């Protein structure tokens, strides 16, 4: 009987602690949005809403969950990282996503950026070259009922021609070159955003814009540089 009582107490404690954790994560997420994102000048309402909705801690390994809302990238295995929350928000704002848009992401990782985009746009195609990561992302996004995300395991170099052109392309795994197929699959007037540099050090963002045959690039401030704009 004593064991039974103990088991019940433990069960109640575990339910309560999960509830407390969940509330804690919600608070941490709200703080993340306010302190790391809004304070740094992100004002795209749909992006802010998406960052509040997507449970970032579910996209990092269990051992990392307490640090999921920290102001930095987190390792997710296979040499990959989930980007700093601010970078995810900044990249999302820069491609100006909206309802009815179709977005291609290169480098699904754990699926976090795809989930953020999926909160805003009609359809997200995300390609992951590492099968283990891609499959994990696929299962997680399905469990979270993101029906508008399609995870494709494959080489991002080729993009996803069958669904092209895209309103926006988000490249989260950048190389020293921009694959020509991606430029070709960008819609006229579309935007492509690419982070350049080590996620652990200083990254810059590059925005590629396509207007007819004319393709231009814009290098943006290194993202670690953006200082907090404290509210008076």
């Amino acid at each position, binding site marked *: 009987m004593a064991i039974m009582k103990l088991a019940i107490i433990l069960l109640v404690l575990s339910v309560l602690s999960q509830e407390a954790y969940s509330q804690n994560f919600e608070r941490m997420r709200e703080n993340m949005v306010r302190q790391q994102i809004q304070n740094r000048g992100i004002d795209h309402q749909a992006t802010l809403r998406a960052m509040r909705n997507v449970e970032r801690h579910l996209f990092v390994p269990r051992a990392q969950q307490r*640090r999921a809302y*920290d102001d*930095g*990238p*987190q*390792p997710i*295995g*296979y*040499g990959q990282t989930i980007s700093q929350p601010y970078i995810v928000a900044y990249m999302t704002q820069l491609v100006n996503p909206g309802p009815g848009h179709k977005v291609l992401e290169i480098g699904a990782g754990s699926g976090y950026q795809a989930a953020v985009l999926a909160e805003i746009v009609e359809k997200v195609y995300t390609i992951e*070259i*590492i*099968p283990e990561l891609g499959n994990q992302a696929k299962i997680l996004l399905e469990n979270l009922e993101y029906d508008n995300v399609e995870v494709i395991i494959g*080489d991002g*170099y080729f993009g996803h021609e069958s669904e092209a052109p895209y309103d926006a392309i988000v490249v989260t795994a*950048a*190389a*020293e*070159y*921009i*694959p*020509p197929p991606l*430029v*070709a699959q960008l819609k006229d007037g579309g935007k492509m955003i690419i982070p*350049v*540099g*080590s996620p*652990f*050090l*200083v*990254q*810059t963002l*590059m925005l*590629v814009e396509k207007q007819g045959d004319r*393709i*231009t*690039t*814009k*290098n*943006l*401030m*290194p993202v*670690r*540089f953006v*200082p*907090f704009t404290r509210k008076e």
Partner: protein
Amino acid sequence: MPKRIYISVGLLSASIIAFQLTLMYLLSIIQWSHFAYMVISVALLGFGASGTLLALARNWFIRHIKIALPVLMMLTAVSMSLIMIISNTVFGSFDSYLLFVDRSQVLGLVITYFAFFVPFLFGAIAIGLVYIHYVKKIGGLYFADLIGSGIGGLLTLVLFWSFSPTQLPAVISTLPLLAGILLIPAGLKMKFTPLILAGLLMPIILFINPPRLPMSEYKGLSGALNLPDAEIVAERSSPYGQLSIVRSPALRYAPGLSLTFQGTVPVRDVIFNNGNWFGPVVEWSETDTSHFLDYTTNSLPYIIANPGDLLLLDAGTGLFAAHALTRGVENITAVEQNRIAVNMLKNELAGMIDSMYQDPSMNPVNLHPRSYLLKDDNLYDLIILPTSESFGGTSGINALEEQYTMTVEAMNEMWHRLTADGMISVTSWMDYPSRAPLKLLATLVETHENNSSLPAEDHIAAIRGWGTITFVLKKSPLNPDEIGRIRDFGNQMNFDPVLLPGIDQSERSVFNQLPDDDFFSHVDRIMSADRYRFYNEYDFNIRPATDNIPYFSQFLKLGRYGKMQEMFGQSTVPFLEIGYLIVLLTFIQITGAAVILIILPLFAIGWKGGGKLYTVLHFSGIGLGFMFIEIILIQQFILYFGNPIYAAAAVLSGMLICSGAGSLASGRFSKGRRGIVKVLALVIFFILIYTILLTPLLRLTINFPLTAKIFLSILFISPAAFFMGMPFPLGLRKLAELNDTLIPWAWGINGCLSVISTALATIIAVEAGYIWVMLIAALAYGLTLSANLIKN
């Protein structure tokens, strides 16, 4: 004293040097090379700590010396052989790259320090104990120590050629084991059997079945191996590093490719050296008439002219050579130091690829590029330097790399190797805030200014894509046809001209916009006579590198650190130029630890009393001075031999052996205070002579045959090294007469200061240049001299 102690000390010293070099090699493969530098520096504090322990427990150690010596040597052996298993345990959860984002990794760092510290501590206690107990024989013992270290350095080279990196600790651990076995007292052999068996079995098992290398998942090689169907198709270990050739259907390389390129980026095998990117494996066929580099800013010199003779410096895997061949260049001299990589491309990989190294136009040269420039007297239509910095910026990771090919003196030599219309071309990745392209331009402008009275703006062209910028310095002025072709090329490729005679501001960011226009105003100031003021005003160090301060990739100005914190935020600034900051952090850590290690023994031996000031001054001075000179000589001889590995081996071994001879002669050479003073005065004299004459002498004889150069280098090194081997044994002998309880303390001080000196020499070289390192070495010996002038 048993004679075999000399052999044991020699074997132990050889193993410690070999182990240190092996750890450096292993950690560079597993983790980030600056991290390797930091860990090894802290681990070497084992020498300082050994002095502290010996000072605190001197009597106990002396009472048990017959048992303690073999046990300590065998423990050194066991801890060396176990290092790979410990590494796997530690690095299983620790990654130096994660230190930036995860504070819990600091604990892993501390455990790592300790794991690597232990073998050095055991070994150093053993050597220190021998010195304390047999101080009357110090001349011979120090000789054995130095000769052993010298031979250990050479032995490591042989081992690097012969074994895989993971087998090396096991092989090296047999040396201290043998040293320990030699000293087992006759009646106690049976009692030592378990330790001997453990010491023997472990290296055998670990040699036959070496543990895997726990490489960081953030290293380039790990990333490549995560790609689908990736495999290592060839691997080769040598003193040049561990080369791995990776094949995957998803490995492609086209740096800075124009967005107008509509072809297919070819799949390439890639060579990694110590887990870091080295270059793509280049295939080439005579039918190739175009190359993807035609769609990059690297094409700029070929838009200006059709060069016939090309010199490629730091040619790597030959990517630029393949481009040149498709451009119809007739003669290509490709200078690359890493002969193992070139041999692999020429021979072993020739079956897998159509190696362009078989082409008759190719003339591969295995030398340091700068040594080649000093020896060569041919003229070239085009000289291409390797791409500066890397994609996304390096955040100062290469800050401490001596880049003798990127100094003003090197560029001057290149200028003299150009034909009348010849060009120097160099590409850099763009960075923000701008550093590398500005320093590159400053170097080219100063080169032009040094060699021509004509305005530089007529001789320099620069074109910028989305990620790269290419500069061309032309010996003759750019003519209107050439300028027109450059503009057309930019329009075709979506590249913007940055520098052209008669350029308009509006042309500079048509296709590729920057966060602000500061870059262009900075470029204009460098082109103007105002550039020297600009060097001072700019927040980063963009003053051209020189042979005296050859750190092209070091951009951090310590004096501006506070201002940068205000501009970019406190948490951001360390990430801008992290490489140099790691050295500063290493220096702070080891200095802090050294101060504690030096002060602790005073609680046992007392704070007051005769000989303490002498001990501190004498042994600090030689600890600093000896290492300073060793480091500088290695730097100087890199260019002389054209090869950093052989330079290090020649200098290190030559110096240690000559110093050993000096130590041996020290007993007879000088007695009393006058003798030490004379020796120290001679050391200072030779250092000052080196400061003035070494560089010109080496330049003068660089074209001599190798055997003559080896002979000359021994001739250069031996006089100073011979006398530098004397102050340590002379100082210990003096302490033995004065107060022998200070001997372990002196050993610890010497150890601590030797470790501090490596980081300090780097900092002085970066901030003030090599000449100052030499002068401060002379000052350090002056400190030792002053200690001997004080009456004790």
